[in-house]
């Protein structure tokens, strides 16, 4: 297919935009955003063309396309790299460039283009998000784990830069995290995961000798990895495939903000809202899920191995854990952030129990509705003049109708409102898969716990979503800002509407075959043709529908039926008591990490530095130095001065005597007369030389004088001014003279 030969161009468009903005376009704001939107727009067109080509290619799933070239030599072989497309990549190509494009367009309005509030680093913002898009598109197209990792890290960089985009910002409360601290926290936390992933990658590479997906997932390689055993200290003997899978999963835990590395994502909300939507909801954070999906054959290589439990448990636990925190948050974006963590947990849990298709499906639908929710919240924030506290909102339904209705669409999708939202179908498939596993494996099995935890989380999700809608849009305005709220410009509302469309309809691509008819579950057919379809479970579907509706209803009951008045506390505070405090403080994980990891690292740094500088190494070095100096001065005092100097002085006296003698008996009578003779001859000759001198030699003399001065300067180094040295030189010269005289 010709279309597939252009794959590599897809990430190149936004990269070109990035380079052009950085190198020259940045003083011109309009040019900058035009380049960025143009770049991602081209990627979108090409991405969708590719996607549809793939969709209409018969048996596409069995014949992924690869384009490769040699990258660098490794001993006797070369590392090959390139791009590839298979169904998973194809559906990501449907989602990523489109969501990116929507958010790029939205950013024009959000960053205040054409108003007096335009951001002073407007162009820089578009450069960063263009680079980010490069990273995400490259990641999904990479045909090997190393290239994937490279784009993975580039996204991490962009995330860091964009979270800290407003790096000057300070808050009156010193405990409130600032953007610059949030960026740092995000980078370091995810890097811990990344290093674990790197180790997994190294392990895989050293065992397989290759990191290309095609090669890793060949039957023989997977078999070899599953059969080989490795003994780890403290852990025991495990299959190599299991160890590698768990290590690589470390990267996903960091990037997708899973427990216990979840702490960075809520604080990442310090970045501009389009960034939260793009990077911290729709694309980058789901890259962790994508990684697990991409590496799925490896995770599935050892059936019922410990990696299943690790992935399933972390996913399901995170899903529930984060949704409990979301219930007690008042910042509109923080609620969404915890909701994102929770939803990512759903996907991870799904992949953990083998629900590959369901996990990938939820990844796609979630990206659309969560991007929508974030953009909606951004619209609210702009509309309310940068107010983010839901307690100070209320009554925005009338003032911001487009934002309201699109937000409701996204919120219902998130809650899994039955039938008409995308989230319902994708979430239900995960629950159904877990239920089916439970039916097969019984109560003491991962699928059961996954099902249980996710079902509870589903209710909480609907509840906090109902709470959020009620607090933000219903009732009366609870602050000055909310009273004067206004609808946002078209550049922001149009993307909202487009995303809302997909948030509602995308689920129809994956309706179970029992309902829609055999062979009609398009998503499963396209992405997971090699997996058996998850059978429909009517009780599970009914339960999740009931939970979604009742959760939303409860949320409305508590917060919407009798809207909060200005200054009225959250009714949950009283109802939950100390539990609410714990939830509000996110189970004190920030404090715990601050007290252990951060303090520990800084303490260790101080300790090592003192060891280096104060306590051990430098004192030792200085002691050796002083010892040497002491030895030298001791030698000088007790050996040099009395013994050697004595000898030198003696020699000096002898020398002086000798020289006097020489002067009297050799110099005066013999040499002087010779010199005088020469002198007289010279005087006679000099008259003759005068004119030569005048005409020729002067130039030479000047040169030699100048030269002598050079030499003199060089000699000045030797002229130390110490009498002993001179004496020594004199003596040495004399001894030499005498020696020459005697040995002649």
């Amino acid at each position, binding site marked *: 297919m010709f279309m597939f030969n252009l794959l590599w161009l897809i990430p190149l468009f936004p990269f070109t935009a990035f380079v052009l903005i*950085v190198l020259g376009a940045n003083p011109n704001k309009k040019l900058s955003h035009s380049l960025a939107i143009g770049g991602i727009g081209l990627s979108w067109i090409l991405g969708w063309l590719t996607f549809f080509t793939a969709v209409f290619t018969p048996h596409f799933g069995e014949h992924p396309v690869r384009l490769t070239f*040699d*990258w*660098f*030599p*490794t*001993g*006797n*072989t070369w590392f090959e790299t390139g791009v590839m497309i298979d169904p998973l990549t194809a559906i990501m190509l449907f989602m990523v460039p489109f969501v990116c494009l929507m958010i790029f367009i939205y950013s024009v309005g959000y960053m205040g283009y054409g108003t007096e509030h335009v951001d*002073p*680093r407007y162009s820089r913002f578009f450069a960063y998000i263009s680079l980010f898009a490069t990273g995400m598109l490259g990641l999904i197209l990479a045909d090997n784990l*190393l290239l994937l*990792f*490279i*784009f*993975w*890290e*580039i996204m991490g*960089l962009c995330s*860091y830069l964009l979270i*800290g985009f407003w*790096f*000057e910002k*300070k808050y009156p409360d010193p405990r409130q995290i600032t953007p*610059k*601290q949030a960026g*740092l926290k995000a*980078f*370091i936390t995810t*890097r*811990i995961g990344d*290093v674990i992933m*790197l*180790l997994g990658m*190294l*392990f895989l*590479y*050293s065992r397989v*000798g290759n990191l290309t997906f095609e090669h890793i997932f060949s039957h023989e390689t997977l078999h070899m990895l599953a059969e080989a055993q490795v003994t780890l200290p403290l852990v025991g003997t495990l299959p190599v495939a299991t160890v590698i899978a768990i290590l690589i999963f470390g990267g996903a835990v960091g990037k997708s903000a899973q427990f216990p590395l979840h702490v960075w994502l809520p604080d990442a909300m310090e970045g501009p809202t389009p960034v939260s939507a793009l990077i911290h909801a729709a694309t980058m954070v789901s890259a962790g899920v994508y990684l697990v999906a991409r590496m799925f054959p490896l995770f599935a290589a050892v059936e019922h191995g410990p990696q299943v439990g690790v992935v399933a448990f972390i996913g399901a636990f995170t899903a529930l854990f984060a949704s409990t925190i979301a219930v007690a948050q008042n910042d509109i974006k923080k609620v969404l952030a915890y909701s994102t963590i929770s939803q990512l947990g759903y996907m991870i849990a799904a992949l953990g129990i083998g629900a590959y298709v369901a996990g990938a499906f939820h990844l796609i639908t979630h990206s659309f509705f969560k991007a929508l929710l974030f953009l909606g919240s951004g619209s609210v924030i702009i509309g309310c003049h940068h107010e983010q506290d839901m307690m100070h909102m209320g009554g925005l339904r009338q003032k911001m109708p487009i934002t309201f209705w699109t937000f409701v669409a996204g919120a219902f999708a998130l809650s899994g409102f039955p039938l008409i939202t995308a989230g319902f179908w994708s979430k239900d498939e995960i629950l159904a898969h877990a239920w089916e596993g439970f039916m097969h494996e019984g109560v003491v099995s991962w699928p059961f716990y996954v099902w249980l935890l996710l079902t509870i989380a589903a209710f909480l999700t609907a509840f906090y979503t109902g709470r959020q809608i009620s607090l933000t849009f219903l009732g009366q305005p609870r602050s000055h800002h909310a009273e004067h709220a206004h609808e946002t410009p078209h550049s922001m509302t149009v993307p909202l509407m487009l995303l809302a469309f997909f948030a509602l309809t995308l689920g129809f691509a994956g309706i179970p075959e029992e309902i829609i008819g055999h062979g009609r579950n398009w998503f499963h057919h396209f992405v997971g043709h090699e997996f058996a379809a998850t059978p429909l479970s009517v009780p599970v579907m009914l339960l999740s529908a009931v939970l979604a509706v009742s959760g939303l209803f409860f949320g409305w009951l508590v917060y919407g039926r009798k809207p909060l008045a200005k200054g009225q506390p959250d009714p949950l505070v009283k109802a939950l008591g100390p539990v609410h405090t714990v939830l509000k403080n996110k189970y004190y994980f920030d404090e715990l990490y601050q007290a252990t990891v951060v303090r520990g*690292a*800084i303490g*260790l*740094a*101080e300790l*090592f*530095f003192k060891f*280096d*500088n104060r306590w051990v*190494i*430098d004192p030792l*070095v200085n002691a050796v*130095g002083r010892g*040497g100096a002491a030895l030298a001065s001791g030698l000088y005092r007790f050996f040099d001065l009395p013994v050697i100097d004595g000898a030198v002085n003696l020699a000096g006296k002898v020398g002086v005597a000798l020289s006097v003698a020489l002067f009297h008996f050799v110099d005066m009578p013999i040499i002087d007369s010779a010199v005088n003779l020469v002198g007289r001859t010279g005087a006679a000759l000099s008259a003759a030389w005068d004119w030569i001198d005048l005409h020729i030699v002067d130039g030479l003399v000047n040169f030699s004088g100048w030269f002598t001065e*050079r030499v003199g300067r060089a000699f000045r180094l030797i002229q130390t001014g110490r009498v002993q040295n001179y004496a020594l030189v004199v003596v040495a010269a004399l001894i030499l003279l005498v020696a020459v005289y005697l040995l002649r």
Partner: protein
Amino acid sequence: MGFPLLTVILFFPLLGAIVVWLIPKEKEQLIRWFSIVLSFIPLALSIYLWIAYTRSAGGMQFEEIYNWIPVLKIRYHVGVDGISVPLVFLTSLLSTLSHFYSAYTIKKQVKEYYLFFLLLQMGMYGVFMSLDFVLFYVFWEIGLVPMYFLIGIWGGARREYAAIKFFLYTLIGSVAMLLAILYVYFNVGSFDILEATEKFHLIRPFAANIVPVSLAFWAFFVGFAIKVPSFPFHTWLPDAHTEAPTAGSVILAGILLKLGAYGMVRIALPIFSEAFSYYAWVVGILAVISIVYGAFVCMAQWDLKRLIAYSSVSHMGYVMLGIAAAAFALRMPGKETSAAIALNGAVLQMFNHGIITGGLFFLVGIIYEQAHTRELKAFGGLASKLPTYYGIFAVTGFASLGLPGLAGFWAEFMVFRGAFDIIPIYAVIGAVGIVVTAGYILWKIIQYMFLGTFNEERWGGKLVDMATFEKVTMWPLVLFMFAIGVYPAFIVNLLNDATTALLAKL
């Protein structure tokens, strides 16, 4: 014998030094520009050397052999292989940039400064080209003296302490090395390095001569380890760096540290392969300590320059780890590929560290020239006021912390890739350094200096963005960071041939 390319590169700086010596000291501008222009000749020739080196033939090329002191069988023997070619180029590049940068920043005793600098340049070339022990040793020492003066005369407040510390430390290393050289000479009967590589282990097999060969190995190793510098021989480095003038730090970090690592690859590993392999665990432990400990110590620094100095300890630890892994692999059949990758990583890290840390020291100099302080806490918010400086510093910093897409990543990846297969525990512990490195670069440097609010009261109007000459100095380095980051093959090609050949012989 054709055109003596290496000799010309080697002695051009000396020629330059002689001419500078003859120029009257008042003509400072002439001295500056003469040195810069002159240094372009070895630079151009080094580029030519890179191109003209025939990869398919491999091995030592451009060899020149002349008798020097026939009685003692000392010869003038120079030659380069795939490992030394990039390092010769690195020397040329950083020297030219240093000459250029110094032209704008060195105000006192200009003549002496350039004189020493040119001599230093010759010394560095000599070490990378010498294939005769005596020649090697002479150039090794030649590098020492000008550096002593560069620190001692043009340095900062505690320059004398730093200069003497530097001198004594490295002198001790040199003396140890000299004794070991003599031991090799008396056994092999020649000072030729290549001959020793071939014959020494036959004449003195390690198993039969454990004590003397071990002593000789450790003497070499300590000599090199001081220069690298490896924990626990590293404390001269922060002082020397902190006090040295900017270009001095650049050369010190960029090239002089490589002399030690180069010695390990060129001499300690091939000649004492059995001993090195036997003691690889010690080297590996020192490497891992250097990586992790060095990174943590960086986190405790508040002086920008001192921080970067300590980061060298950590980053050169990767070089040692790669070499140690390759040495380990000598006793493990079937690990040849991993050993080659580890050694490629080590040599690539030498080159990268020169580019990146050299760049970082230029950047420190650029801000210090204006602010006259290097206290991290004194700054803040520079990202908004000095955008170009911030951009270049950020790129260099990210390259240093091993961000993929920039040079540093490849070396780290290759070292860890090789080491993980051979000595996994070391690699796992060493990997902690990667996280801590991100910590000190982003937290200490980027956050304290560039983010936050700009102190208008203290710095308003006093700090300006990079001048043209500063940009010109940095651009080539940044270019290399990207070039290696995107397509490492153009340099790894050379290294790979040389390292596989080197390992195949052992």
